[in-house]
């Protein structure tokens, strides 16, 4: 069974890996870190799957203006996929 908590540092790395090619690695990193900060998630603490979903939801509009809504959804799915299926 997959863990239901996620390491924020890994989320940043995943966003950087998937989105960096489109918006540049610096923007991908800064953008995801800001999203974590807005949700008051510290880098040293674990985050829940719900918080991960909130971060991904926050990233979607910014990505949609670059690659369109359909591809943005696919890329967000790709990041989500890196954390395995949601625990029941």
């Amino acid at each position: 069974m997959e863990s239901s908590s996620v390491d924020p540092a890994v989320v940043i790395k995943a966003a950087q890996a998937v989105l960096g090619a489109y918006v540049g690695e610096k923007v991908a990193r800064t953008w995801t870190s800001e999203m974590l900060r807005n949700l008051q998630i510290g880098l040293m603490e674990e985050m829940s799957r719900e918080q991960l979903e909130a971060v991904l939801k926050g990233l979607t509009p910014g990505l949609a203006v670059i690659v369109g809504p359909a591809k943005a959804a696919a890329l967000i799915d790709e990041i989500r996929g890196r954390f395995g299926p949601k625990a029941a």
Partner: protein
Amino acid sequence: MKRHHLDLLLYGVAAIAIAAVGGSMLAAGANGLSGVTLAVHVAAKWLLLATGAWLSLRNASAMGAGTAIGRAWRLFGLGIGLFFIAELGEAFYQFVLHTLNPFPSVLDVFYILAYPLLVLGLVGFVRAYSAVGYPMGSTRDTVIITVALVAVGLAGVWPVLTAGDGDTPLWEKALAAAYPLLDVALLVAVGLLLRGARQFGGGHAWEVWAFIMAGMVVMVAGDFVYAYASLNAEDVVDPISEMLFVASYALLARGALRQLDLIEA
């Protein structure tokens, strides 16, 4: 047609047109374009503009007609489309009536209307990016960029604005002045976009804007060269400005194609 082939076609068409005009200049000097060279050049401009407009409108549709970014792409595509219609009209004068289009003419309506659409499109891109949280620059930066570019632009176009004899009707002078002034507005919009787009350096998004902004700057350069050539009152198709226009249209179409790549590839 695969996008890779379309890419090659854009570069190929622009290269052939520029080589034809450049070769003609080397052979006969800068005495204006005519005959087969002019026909090849005009066909290239049609193809590049039509492709640029079509790709931009496809981007608009893929981004979502009701979205800010979709609206910006639509305005941009319509602006390029108006240039296409104006170029069709110019060719009618050149190849059917065997003369250069007079100034002013009905074609100026299309050219003049194209500029606000392009400016609104570029500003629309900036606003759409800003609305989703990308830092596109402070108000202070906007004022500095606007003032600096307006000053530089006006200094460059001043001889064109003040040219012409006293018998020229006021509305004709105003129309002649409108082109360089709209070029300055275009430069300001490019400056605002450049300030925000730089952050995407290293990503594919930067490539889109690099092509679009380069296309706009080359187009403005072409307008300036054309305006200065017109001051000499020679009724010929100026080859240098025409080469710049072809390069500009190719870059704009290439930028729109890169955006479509990001959406669909």
